[in-house]
């Protein structure tokens, strides 16, 4: 029983240890360090490109564009245009039935 009470009082003490806690402040010259960081970032081209690319909006737009492109291509493939000539018509017109020079030179009577 005593052990339990002892444990509870330890827990209570720990829970109350943050009462009247003071505010922590950064090291002096925080503003100077901050301005140096902003200037460093403004001067670094690749950092700016990196931060632009790593934005969720950029990833969303890129993925959407790829998906739209895919949908566009898939849609066009499944409905070929009606004006495209038939393959057999092309083959006849260009005499593609003749395979080799042998066929041309040894025409059967």
């Amino acid at each position, binding site marked *: 029983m005593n052990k339990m009470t002892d*444990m509870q009082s*330890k*827990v209570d*003490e*720990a*829970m*109350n*240890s*943050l009462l*009247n*806690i*003071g*505010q*922590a*402040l*950064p*090291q002096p010259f*925080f*503003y100077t*360090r*901050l301005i140096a*960081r*902003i200037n460093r*970032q403004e001067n670094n081209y690749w950092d700016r490109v990196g931060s632009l690319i790593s934005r969720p909006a950029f990833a969303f737009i890129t993925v959407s564009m790829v998906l739209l492109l895919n949908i566009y291509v898939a849609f066009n493939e499944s409905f070929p245009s009606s004006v495209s000539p038939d393959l057999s018509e092309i083959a006849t017109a260009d005499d593609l039935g003749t395979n080799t020079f042998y066929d041309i030179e040894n025409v059967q009577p």
Partner: protein
Amino acid sequence: MRVLNEWNLIERLKKGDEAAFKEIVESSQGLVYNTALGIVQNPEDAEDVAQEVFVQLYESIRSFKGESKLSTWLYRITVSKAMDHLRKKKRKKRFAYVQSLFGVNEQLIYDPPDFVHPGVSLDNKEKAKELFKAIDQLPPKQKIAFTLNRIEGLNYQEISEIMKLTVASVESLLHRARKNLRKNLETYYLQNEK
């Protein structure tokens, strides 16, 4: 009067006035740093997070529409940056551990053993160390609510505005946080007794 001054500063900052930026940084650096320190529990990391917060303020002040107070906006950015920082640190640690298994990088990332908040009074330091260990094990939302309440001294209404929750949800979060902290502390004391 204070609200008018805040609006004036924001408008000046939107026009690129560096003096306004300096005034905002100097008046709110304590708020940002203290909150970040409570969450990341490391002075160097807290400084890094505080700088990131003000860089974001500088870059995106034009998108600030004034629907909430500037301090509420700053708290929101701080909490989000601090949690991102913790996630990145955890990821780095895991990656370093995997690398060490393959012998690529023998150095592991270690956390400093015990964090002591500089605002804690001397006679409470030992107890606060144990409490901070327990806070570090809380789920993210409970950790944020508890830090804002106990370390920044914000009331339920202010926390609900920062976390975009109802006051009842904040009350429930804090109740669960306290319960979990007691459980974590009991486990810690039991382990240390053995």
